[in-house]
Structures are given as C-alpha cells and as structure tokens.
C-alpha cells in the first residue's frame, strides 16, 4: 500500500496534474453557483474535455476537482439566496440562509468552506484506509435495507423539521412522495397520475421543485416585507472569522458527520443527499436542548453538519466505484462512463493492475480539498457581497435565476409555468407554517424509495422481506420511534405545563 501511495503522490504532484485540480475546482465552483447545474450536469459537460486529455489519471483528477468544486459552489447559492441548486445542499440552506439573513453570510461561508474541507479530507483518509474492506460491507446492504434506510431518513426529517408539529411535517413528506410518483417510474414503464398532461410524462423536475419550495417563496417574502432584506446590517459583511468557542463547538460535529457521511456515501445509492439530511437530523437530535432551538434559525452546528457530511459522502461514493466498479450515485455513474471511455475498467483489479490511477485519484482528493480552501477563503468577502446588491436589483435577479435553473434542465417553457404555480402554493403553505423541506426531501427520495421497495417485494414475493431481514426490521423500528417520540415528548411537556400530574 505504501508503495502505491508513493506512486500516487508522484503522479498527483506533477505540475500538469496540479493544474488540472486547480482548474477543475475553479470551474466546478463557478458553474456550481448557478442554480440548476449540479455536479452531475457539470461533470457530464466536462467529460469531452477530460477524455481529450487522454491520460486517465489526469482526466479523473480533473473530474474529481470539478465534483468537489461544484458541491462547494452549490452551498454558496444555498447560503446566500436560499436557492439550493443540488439536492445535497438542501440541508445546507436550513441554517446557512438564516445566518446570511442575520448579516453573518461571511461566517456562514467560512464555516461551510471549513466543514467541507474537513469532511472531504477525513473522507479521503478513510477512503485510503478502508476502501477494500468497506466494499464488501456495502454489498451486505440489499434493496430491503435501502428501503428501510430511506424510511429512517424521511422520518428523521419529519420528526425534526417543525418543533411539535410532526403531523404537518409528515403530511408534507407524504405530499412529496406523492409528487414523486407522477410520471413514468423506472420499474414500471407506464405513466402514472399525469392527468393526460404531456409535460408531466417525465414527472416534476427536481430543480423546478427545489426552486419553487425555497427560492421563490423567499423572494416573494422579500417583496412582501421590504424590512426583511438587508435586515439591520445594511448588507455589511461582518464576523468573517470564527471565534474559538464556535470552533470548539463545531469540531465534534464535523468529526462525527465526516465519519457518518463517509459511511453513508459508501453505500451505493445512498449518497451525499441522504448523508446531509441524516447528518442534520442526527446533530439536531443529540444537541443540548437550548442549542436544539437554534437549529433552523442559524445554528453553525446545523450548517457544519450537512456540509461535512455531504463532502465526506462524495468521497465515500468513490469506494464502490473504484473497488467494485459499481457507481453509487448519478455522478459516479457518469464518472464510470468517463473511465470506460478512457480504457480503464474499475473493479477489484484496479488497485493491483493500475495502482497509479487508484492512488493518484485519492491523493488528488487531498490536494483538491486544500486548493478549494485556499481559493475560497479569500474569495468569501467578495462572494458575500452579493447580498449588498440593492433589493430592486437583487430580487429580479433571484427570480430570473430560478427561472433559468428550471429552464436549462428541461428546455421546456411549460416547466416555468409549473414553477410559478408550485411557488405560489409553497408560499401559501409557508404562510400556514407548514415546513417545506420534508416535501422536497420526500420528492427526492420518493423514486429511490419506491424502486427499492418494489425490488424487495419482487425478490421476496411479498411484504415478507420486512420479517425476513433483521436489519430492515431494526431500521423500520427506529423510524417509527423517531416519529412517535417527539409528539409523545411534546404531549408530556404540554400536560406538565397545564399542571396535570403525569405518572413516571
């Protein structure tokens, strides 16, 4: 292994490969900031460039740099204008955007950059040590467990999205799941619930829904109530630095979430999105009572958790790709295509046959993370200046970018009408204090959830898989606990407040 690392070091530290990492990170960061272009589309766009390089290690290094850059860029738009362009940065906006509204955009971006850096770096270390062993563990997860894992993720989000209002959050989750069933599914090739509308044949677009749930209602709120924008800071960027106490409080969060995110990322199909949501939910649940209240209102812990988890998970998703040749996410599937085009066949033999590729990629992950941090920290004050733009200019631009995000992906003007309609609906839901995040998460996980459910139903010829696989049963038990506990707790608290004696 040591020999491999040395080979990798010498490959990754050649001047041309260093330039590849720098270029990849820059391209990824800037394109990733545009809502609507996630890592998957950016990598797809970069593939022709990468293939024309010819050298597989250099190409893979470039693409890995783009990947990291895109994820960081996506967090920027989540934090600054509440427009998460990528599913895995949705959780970032929960606390990142409130921080930006309090005038702490600089601090939020710094925390995000540092958390991403730590998540990515810890992930790379874990990848180096555990890659071969983890590959076999990931194979123990069958579709039944994936199904159960996603149910746990959904109930964790529903349970913690709105304090004491589990029913509302659950209802929103179910609506999201219902929306995910619209259109043609992967397992059944017949359209469902399209009501005869051709444009719904392929279902609702993720970007359209993300923009409609977060960016659009926020923009409408800004219009309705001018005192919300540039609130009491005048757009000034202060508090760029993190205090010692804050660093101390987020360090354990970053540590835990890097490891948890990496492990979730290793599972094929789970990926950065689930890792970031679960990371957020877990940190919120184990935080002390007074800090728990801060989650969703601008807690730096709530920002650090999904950021470190999603970056660690991105690294983790390279484990099944490099060791088994199984892509764990859409992005790594595109990478697999690029690898095959470059005449590299990922799989168990890759480490033995072409160690320079395997290790160069891992080493370049460290380099990519360091470069992202060096590039981004000095840029943060300038990026955060976006918020200092006068609202008469900022709001039309936010609206324009949400429209563009929905349009570029589908190239379909009807999508824009759907966007406006859903945006108005989301605003009304927000008036009534319904949490919107569970809806979007339900939608994102919906098709994966149904596919895995259908697959395990087919494998076990019925619902029996729940009883036959202990891990599935355990996870589903955990999920129901997660839903029941908070409402039970709230009920007890209310009873106590009303002075009713409770027996315990």
């Amino acid at each position, binding site marked *: 292994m040591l020999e491999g690392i040395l080979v990798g070091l010498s490959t990754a530290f050649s001047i041309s490969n260093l330039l590849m990492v720098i270029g990849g990170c820059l391209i990824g960061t800037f394109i990733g900031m545009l809502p609507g272009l996630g890592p998957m589309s950016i990598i797809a766009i970069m593939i022709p460039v990468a293939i024309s390089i010819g050298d597989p290690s250099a190409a893979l290094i470039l693409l890995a740099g783009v990947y990291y850059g895109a994820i960081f860029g996506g967090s920027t738009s989540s934090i600054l204008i509440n427009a998460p362009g990528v599913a895995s940065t949705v959780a970032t906006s929960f606390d990142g955007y409130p921080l930006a509204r309090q005038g702490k955009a600089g601090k939020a971006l710094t925390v995000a950059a540092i958390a991403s850096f730590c998540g990515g770096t810890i992930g790379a270390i874990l990848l180096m040590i555990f890659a071969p062993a983890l590959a076999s563990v990931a194979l123990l997860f069958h579709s039944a467990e994936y199904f159960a894992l996603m149910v746990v993720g959904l109930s964790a989000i529903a349970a913690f999205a709105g304090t004491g209002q589990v029913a509302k959050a659950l209802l929103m989750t179910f609506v999201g799941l219902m929306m995910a069933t619209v259109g043609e599914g992967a397992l059944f090739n017949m359209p469902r619930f399209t009501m005869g509308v051709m444009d719904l044949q392929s279902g609702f677009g993720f970007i359209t829904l993300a923009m409609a749930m977060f960016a659009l209602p926020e923009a409408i709120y800004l219009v309705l109530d001018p005192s919300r924008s540039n609130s009491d800071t005048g757009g000034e960027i202060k508090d760029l630095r993190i205090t010692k106490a804050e660093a101390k409080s987020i360090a354990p969060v970053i540590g835990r979430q890097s490891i948890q995110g990496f492990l979730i990322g290793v599972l094929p199909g789970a990926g950065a999105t689930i890792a970031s949501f679960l990371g957020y939910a877990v940190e919120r649940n184990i935080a002390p009572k007074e800090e728990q209240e801060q989650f969703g209102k601008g807690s730096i812990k709530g920002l650090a958790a999904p950021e470190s988890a999603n970056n660690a998970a991105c690294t983790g998703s390279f484990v099944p790709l490099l060791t088994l040749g199984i892509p764990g996410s859409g992005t790594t599937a595109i990478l697999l295509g690029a690898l095959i085009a470059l005449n590299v066949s990922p799989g168990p033999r890759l480490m033995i046959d072409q160690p320079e590729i395997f290790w160069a990629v891992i080493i370049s992950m460290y380099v990519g993370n360091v470069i992202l941090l060096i590039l981004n920290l000095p840029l943060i004050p300038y990026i955060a200046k976006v918020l200092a733009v006068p609202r008469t200019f900022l709001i039309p631009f936010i609206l324009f970018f949400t429209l563009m995000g929905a349009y570029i992906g589908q190239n379909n003007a009807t999508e824009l009408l759907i*966007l406006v309609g859903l945006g108005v609906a989301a605003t009304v839901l927000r008036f*009534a204090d319904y949490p919107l995040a569970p809806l979007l998460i339900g939608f994102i996980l919906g098709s994966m959830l149904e596919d895995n459910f259908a697959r395990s139903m087919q494998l076990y010829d019925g619902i029996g898989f729940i009883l036959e696989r202990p891990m599935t049963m355990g996870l589903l038990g955990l999920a129901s606990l997660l839903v029941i506990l908070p409402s039970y707790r709230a009920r007890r608290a209310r009873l106590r407040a009303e002075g009713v004696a409770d027996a315990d």
Partner: protein
Amino acid sequence: MALDRWIALIILMISLVYGYTAFFTMDGGLPPFMQRNPIWPSTFPKMLSVLTIVSALIILLGIEKSDDEIKPSEINYRRLTEYKLGQALMLLGLMVVYALLLRPIGFLAATFGFLVLGSAILGERRYGVLALVAALAAGIVWYLVQQVLGIFLSPWPTFFAVGG
C-alpha cells in the same frame, strides 16, 4: 377555520382523488403478466394515499395540538393587504409572461424585458443603470449557457431564426 386546516382539507381532497385513482382506475389497463407480480404500479400509491389521508385528518380534526403563536419575523397572512401584495402579484404575473414569451420573442429580449420591468415594479427609477445591467446580464448569461456550456437557448425572436 385557520389556514393550516384549510390546506389540510385541500390536501385531503387531492389525496382522495389520488387514492381513488390508485385503488380503482389505475389497474384496469394492467397487462396480465404484470398482474402476477407481487408489486403493481399502484401498490406504493395505495399505501401513500392511506398515509396521507390519515395525517391530513389528524391536522384537520386538530388531534395534534399546536401552539398558535405567530412568530414575529414571519408574515402574518391575516393582514396580507398591509404588505406589498401588489408588487408580489405583479412580479408573479411577470414570471408567467416571461414563461409564455421566452420562446416566441427569444431569450435576449425576454430576459432584458423581465429584468427591467421587474426592477421597475420594485421601485427602481435609475433607468439608465437598469438598462445597462439588464442588457449585460442577459448577454453574459446567454453567452455562458449557449457558447460555454453548449446548452441551446434561442437568442432571437422566432421569425429571425431560420428553422430555429
């Protein structure tokens, strides 16, 4: 009845229709070989509709108590007219117009118009700056998307383009 219960009622209606489709009409066209499968395209929607109906009922009937305090930073919908409702509605209307005009008049003109009118609705009166910013933004975004990323965006009105 409070707004959140009205919404629960609407979602309940939607889920009833959804459930009716899943339970009664969807399986009609199912080919015989698929009927032997343990899972049908309607299985998951059936479960979902039941769960949605139950949770909508919980809210509608007020089984789960919620504390009815209005958070100070949020918008109170009962006094919606005291906010800049007109501006918000005009901007939404503008987005619809943009969606309808994007193809016919082309990306550049539609975007320029959208940005200028959007800012004007919000009360911007420096029209010179506005026109310059809007023109630059439309041009730069078009260049990035079309030329750099290679995603097709028709720039000019349809009658300019040949076959486009």
